[in-house]
């Protein structure tokens, strides 16, 4: 069953240069239990699309298209209806656990906040639910009493509290926006394991937003790669990562120094994508990547490419998908 369907979603924000389209016509859908990754660099629109799903965009932004959760279009709901979805049917984890938690409220009170809002429980049941949640995220109440304040916890523990808050009402979808970017690798590993286990055990769908290809590779089944507000490549994570077709995806992948580079005799230069991401108001006509692409043709500069289906599970928005030879 389709849980979430995003149809022709476009978002326009008011910037210093006037209204700018930051997301243009993106389409995707998710089933219950799916794990979708959204990967891209800053400014590609990955966080904006998450905020759109939570209807948390700034008030002066304009959206078009549909975001259908089960059978409701989120974009057509009024603010009270939206509030009954946020935190209840969609949970979200933010990047900075330091700033996303209220520093003057006890962690127990913060976790019970959305339970009080959305679930009809009495005080005792709420307390039971909070205790159960803290257990689930690995902060057993015996060691981490509910009356601790956020500053008494480490970064990873705070992120666990955030996760407990996000899953408090058994949401259908959990959106994790760069949940581990501010954390150390060893802590990141634990948090990713936790998120994945929670999603597996509850059948909750997961949208993992990250700039880190490794995080996406290890936590998702499907992935979409975004560049300047467009999806450039989408498919099963295995297919996309094993066979990158869009020059941008491949460029991103090659730009990371890979483990084992010290084994090589001579240090090779890192291959990098020339130029930089165009600013919003300077985006070219046609394919947005054309100016930085090695395989650019006249067609790319004139008309924006439509989706090309490589297989049922793999689509790419490019006139000249890479071949094996291109990658040598």
């Amino acid at each position: 069953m389709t849980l979430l369907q995003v149809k022709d979603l476009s978002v326009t924000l008011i910037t210093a240069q006037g209204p700018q389209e930051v997301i243009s016509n993106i389409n995707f859908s998710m089933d219950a239990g799916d794990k979708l990754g959204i990967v891209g660099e800053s400014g590609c629109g990955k966080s904006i699309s998450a905020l759109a799903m939570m209807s948390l965009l700034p008030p002066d932004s304009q959206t078009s298209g549909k975001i259908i959760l089960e059978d409701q279009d989120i974009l057509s709901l009024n603010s009270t209806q939206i509030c009954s979805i946020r935190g209840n049917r969609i949970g979200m984890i933010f990047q900075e656990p330091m700033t996303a938690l209220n520093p003057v409220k006890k962690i127990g009170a913060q976790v019970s906040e959305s339970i009080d809002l959305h679930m009809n429980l009495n005080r005792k049941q709420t307390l039971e639910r909070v205790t159960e949640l803290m257990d689930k995220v690995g902060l057993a109440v015996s060691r981490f009493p509910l009356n601790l304040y956020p500053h008494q916890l480490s970064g990873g523990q705070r992120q666990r509290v955030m996760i407990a808050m996000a899953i408090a009402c058994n949401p259908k979808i959990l959106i994790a926006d760069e949940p581990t970017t501010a954390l150390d690798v060893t802590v990141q590993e634990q948090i990713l394991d936790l998120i994945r286990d929670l999603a597996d055990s509850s059948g909750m769908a997961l949208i993992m937003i990250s700039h880190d290809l490794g995080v996406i590779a290890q936590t998702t089944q499907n992935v979409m790669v975004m560049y300047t507000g467009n999806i450039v490549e989408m498919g099963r994570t295995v297919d996309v990562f094993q066979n990158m077709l869009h020059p941008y995806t491949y460029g991103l992948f090659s730009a990371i120094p890979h483990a084992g580079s010290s084994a090589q005799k001579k240090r090779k230069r890192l291959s990098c994508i020339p130029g930089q991401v165009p600013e919003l108001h300077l985006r070219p006509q046609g394919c947005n990547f054309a100016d930085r692409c090695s395989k650019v043709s006249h067609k790319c500069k004139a008309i924006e490419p439509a989706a090309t289906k490589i297989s049922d599970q793999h689509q790419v928005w490019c006139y000249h998908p890479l071949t094996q030879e291109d990658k040598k």
Partner: protein
Amino acid sequence: MKQPLVKIEDVYKDYQLPKKYLFQKAPFFRALHGINLELNQGSSFGIVGESGCGKSTLARIVMALDNPTSGTVFFEGRDLFNIPSAELRHLRRNFQMVFQDPYGSLNPRKNILGIVAEPLDTLKERLSFAEKKERVSQILVEVGLNAADTDKFPHEFSGGQRQRIAIARALITRPSLIVADESVSALDVSVQAQVLNLMMDLQDKYNLTYMFISHDLSVVEYVTDHVAVIYMGQIVEQGTTKSLFQNPLHPYTQTLLRAVPDVNPLNKRREVKERIPQFEMTSKSCPFLDRCIKATKNCADNAPKLVENMGHWVACFNPDVA
């Protein structure tokens, strides 16, 4: 043997913590615990560790921005903390720093000329405005910006370009050492690759020495030829990058390396199980005791010292010799 460019000798750094009671002796936090390192001219030395391990403190001490509690740093044989301040000021042209945050490290109220020319004030000779401008334009071109950018302000540049400006500022006095504290971690990967390539090119051109501080293991592996892994203010493993990454011996180094998520979705990792510490931590114990899978009674009672093993140095009683 040639004299090392930088010699860090038994550096300790304690920070005072706020008192709990009015008349209590102020408690302290030991950020660095006896660090000894030598950096040779033209090499790239990596410092790896998690946040709070003391790697940034070490950078600030090497830059003489902070005083060590005990121990000292020699730069070209001169003791940075035992020379007159005027001499230190002139010596500063030889070591410069590139910071992490490309947004915070450039004064928003100054133009690029003012920012990049700032270290020139440490030179003995006074430069005229025209000479300064000439030098700044030259260096801007060298880091891949335009010579005409001198009159612009930082907000007119993207993150990657700002980091190039920061590199230009560090390079303008033709230093021999550049301390790069997480210099590329705030950048997007494609921009990070451009900046890393630039840094490598500049190293080849000017025989620069880098002290490269990062939490990103793959970047450190790529950039450096020597690495030290720091845990809780102590070096736990140190050696050539090749030997250390091919053959990590300390359990902490192994944990770090294993934790980096693999970009190949088919290489699934083993799940990590939480370990229950078996031994009581004391001030004498190995700092990694409570997280170590191989902890023994000996580790709880004595802290291991760095000993040579399989081509590099490791501070562990039970190193994982494969």
